């Protein structure tokens, strides 16, 4: 007796997927912890770098000879080397987080991580080579 229609013309809700944690092989807090720790290290080193290269030099910036004198100082050289390592690590890890904001797949995220690791190693090679050249100029 009842009138029955197959499609009464109503909207239907899409099924909802339950949120599930990511399959992963690294500890997630580590990335954030590294970023914080390298960030604090960078803060000290960049302050030193800025003061040494901008504020204690008359005229604001070092000329060639002043740079060579500065970089060959036995305390400064390891600190500047450390600065290079830490600041590029911090910067590239930050860039990685920014890239991940574009909503990549897990595979693409892994690829980004590998590429950035290569960039970091290349930066190290370049920077250490440059420092080595300058040190020999004394």
């Amino acid at each position, binding site marked *: 007796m009842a009138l029955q229609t197959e499609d009464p013309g109503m909207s239907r809700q*899409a099924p*909802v997927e339950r*949120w599930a*944690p*990511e399959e*992963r092989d690294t500890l*997630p807090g580590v*990335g954030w912890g590294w970023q914080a720790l390298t960030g604090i290290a960078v803060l000290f080193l960049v302050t030193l770098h800025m003061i040494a290269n901008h504020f204690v030099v008359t005229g604001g910036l070092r000329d060639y000879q002043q740079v060579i004198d500065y970089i060959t100082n036995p305390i400064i050289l390891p600190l500047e080397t450390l600065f290079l390592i830490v600041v590029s690590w911090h910067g590239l890890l930050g860039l990685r987080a920014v890239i991940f*904001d574009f*909503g990549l797949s897990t595979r693409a995220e892994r690829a980004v991580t590998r590429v950035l690791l290569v960039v970091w190693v290349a930066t190290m090679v370049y920077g250490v080579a440059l420092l080595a050249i300058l040190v020999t100029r004394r």
Partner: protein
Amino acid sequence: MSDTTSVTFRVHRYKQGDEDPHHDRFAVEVGPRTTVLDALTAIRRTQDPTLTLRHSCFHASCGTCGMKVNDHEVLACVTNVRELGTDEVRVEPLDNAPVVSDLVVDMGPFYARFDVAERPLVRESELVPGSHTAAGVPQSMRYEDCIECGICVSACPIAGTDPAYLGPAALAAIDRVRQEPRGVDVGPIMRLADDPHAAWRCHLAFECTEACPSNVDPAGHIMQLRRSLFARGWRRPSAEPQGARR
């Protein structure tokens, strides 16, 4: 009761199957007590019965009428139109949630995340100072503060870019269970909080805490969660026999 002024409402409109959303303007007479929710229901009653919106309790207890008013996430039921101080009031649905129609968002994805915390609705009550528990009442209790409105998720800049982010409400719920486990093992949910798309994804904009209409302080809870996760020494949570207690 003739103390009314005309305010224009610019309302987000969308019906399933539409190509793009658009906005409609409605003039509404508002009085000193008129809320955005009152104005919207008046529009539906007298101007456009096709306007869809969510509402239930009318006093900031149910959390259904979360929406964006003049770019800020608010509960429409406690947002006084005159206090907004604008001649035109822009009303839009919450961000970061699928739009069902007009001002209605699909709360499915929100609850799919919120639910992983499995946080009970009632908690221990912080007693009214000086009071005791009545005979026959084993323990004084009250509802959790969170009213599951989705405002924090809409305000969160991370939820705005990362659809996989667990989100402030769910993380705050996990932290509530950590604070007050009520007999459950918190290990499994702490493992969820430890996910890269969970507690560590927060970038401390504190927009959620600022926007929350119910004093939950989701960002504060996320920070408490992190502290607790740090205290566990970055060990794999599954290796722990017992849930973390601060």
